[in-house]
């Protein structure tokens, strides 16, 4: 009996630690403390669970924790910062899979007695399984294992039919009280297929929102299975994450001006559908000219994109920034909400290079300043500075908020080649009168600019 009191009291502390931890993570100053608190909560929860009365299979439990924990710990340690989003996706998928597996065991044991419990177990299993395969597909796409967006003919109809059939099987399970093994297996297979088939047509650019959505899904699934097990720690942590994840998903989708229903049912597939042809020509600029333009400017805004991160040029960019600042130039960074592969991803990458976060500004904070800026330097960003999002109603990205780099007196674009961006849409900014292109890898070009600036100081 006393073990039970100890466990319940500990779960209570765990819930408090999780909520305080998440709260602390919502501010840059306290964020590091937040993850440590949440981490302590997790350790406490895991340790006291071993005291659960009548537990068996201790060897199996410890073995599974060691294998799963060590593999994930190691993979999380070695992954590059640019690859973080897909790691979040895959860990999240595993959580969803775990929730679905819990439901599977409960079905196998025949321990589900009331219709409420059966409903939540079934819902949790569905959501968890969808999150599992969906996150795996998201991982494969971002990792480059799956290059194209596959789209079935009548994709939405297929999704719809599969979804409805899965729900019907789920209702049959709930209604039957003691569902047959075949029914349960059918249900899990359908749910797993559903998650994969929803995610495959979605393009890489929309993936962050989808990962966030699956994160919320896993939270809900964990909360529901927590009810099935009568475990308050799971309920609270799961539902808190479910609600927080839903809000986060909305914030991300809003930043991209892509309603979630559009992302799921009307994905940008790769080739630009519609959109007027862009006229004019691109004008090239040497690294030397770029260096002198910025060295003798008063205000420079740097717009980093995923291209910079992939090249690993953020350290060089920060070095260049410091040189310009010591020459009296006011340099700031403008981050589009979806720069990188997830909102805030670019901030993390710049922070890694040592850029203080107070130099990094959001779209709303900085967009009005472009008109008074001498040079806007675009490094490896494309769609987020494409003015057609403001002007061309037929463009697929019309209405997406963009950084107004085109309004700066001069715009320098560092770009690897002449191709179109991630979404495959031509960028009118590159053809604009006051835009100059520097072709080359971000690292190479910025390196040249740095040496030119240094020689000007001599």
């Amino acid at each position, binding site marked *: 009996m006393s073990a039970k009191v100890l466990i319940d009291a500990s779960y209570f502390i765990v819930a408090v630690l999780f909520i305080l*931890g*998440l*709260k602390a*993570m*919502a*501010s840059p100053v306290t*964020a*590091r403390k*937040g993850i440590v608190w*949440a981490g302590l909560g*997790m350790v406490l929860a*895991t340790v006291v*669970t071993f005291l659960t009365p009548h537990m*068996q*299979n201790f060897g*199996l439990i410890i*073995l*599974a*924790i060691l*294998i*799963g*924990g060590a593999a994930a710990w190691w*993979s*999380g*340690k070695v992954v590059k910062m640019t690859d973080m989003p897909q*790691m*979040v996706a*895959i*860990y*999240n998928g595993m*959580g969803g899979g*775990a*929730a679905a597996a*819990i439901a*599977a*065991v409960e079905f196998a044991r025949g321990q589900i007695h009331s219709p409420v419990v059966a409903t939540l177990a079934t819902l949790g299993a569905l959501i968890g399984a969808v999150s599992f395969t969906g996150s795996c597909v998201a991982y494969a796409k971002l990792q480059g294992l799956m290059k194209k967006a596959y789209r079935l003919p009548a994709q939405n109809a297929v999704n719809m039919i599969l979804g409805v059939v899965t729900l019907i099987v789920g209702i049959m399970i709930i209604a039957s009280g003691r569902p047959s093994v075949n029914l349960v297996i059918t249900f899990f297979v359908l749910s797993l297929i559903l998650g994969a088939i929803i995610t495959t047509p979605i393009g890489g650019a929309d993936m962050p929102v989808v990962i966030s959505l699956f*994160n919320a899904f896993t*939270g809900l699934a964990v909360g529901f299975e927590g*009810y099935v097990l*009568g475990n308050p720690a*799971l*309920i*609270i942590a799961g*539902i*808190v*994450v479910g609600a*927080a*994840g*839903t809000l986060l998903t909305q914030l*991300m989708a809003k930043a991209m001006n892509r309603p979630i229903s559009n992302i799921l049912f009307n994905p940008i597939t790769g080739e630009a559908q519609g959109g007027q042809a862009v006229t004019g020509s691109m004008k090239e600029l040497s690294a030397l000219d770029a260096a002198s333009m910025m060295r003798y400017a008063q205000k420079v805004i740097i717009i980093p994109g995923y291209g910079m991160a992939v090249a690993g040029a953020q350290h060089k960019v920060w070095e260049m920034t410091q040189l310009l600042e010591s020459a009296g130039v006011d340099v700031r960074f403008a*981050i589009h909400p979806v720069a990188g592969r997830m909102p*805030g*991803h670019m*901030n*993390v990458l710049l922070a890694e290079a040592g850029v*203080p*976060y*107070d130099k*990094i500004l*959001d779209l709303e904070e900085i967009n009005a300043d472009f008109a008074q800026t001498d040079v806007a330097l675009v490094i490896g960003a494309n769609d987020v500075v494409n003015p057609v999002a403001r002007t061309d109603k037929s463009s697929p990205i019309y209405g997406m908020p963009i950084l107004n780099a085109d309004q700066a007196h001069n715009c320098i674009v560092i770009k690897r080649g002449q191709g179109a961006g991630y979404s495959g849409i031509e960028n009118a900014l590159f053809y604009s009168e006051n835009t100059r292109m520097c072709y080359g890898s971000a690292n190479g070009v910025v390196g040249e600019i740095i040496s030119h600036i240094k020689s000007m100081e001599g």
Partner: protein
Amino acid sequence: MEGFVAIYIFMLAAFTGYEVIARVPVILHTPLMSGSNFVHGVVLVGAMVVLGEARTGLEQTIGFIAVLLGAANAAGGYVVTERMLAMFKSDKKAGK
């Protein structure tokens, strides 16, 4: 657990989650998504209970998978979040 108590817990937890995130700056969206991903790693605890009660080979197998996946969610989520947050520093005192 009593049915209505559980519903109260669901409701309060949902509001808590919403409030905690409501005023978060954009720069923390990714770390926070990662952090909340870690928090639902507590599914590990449920998986442990289920495996602890498993009797047949089938139950043990699925339970083992559940614990394996849950542990990976928790451990991976922690490491990745910790690494991201370790990078936040400022040259002035906390801006905003």
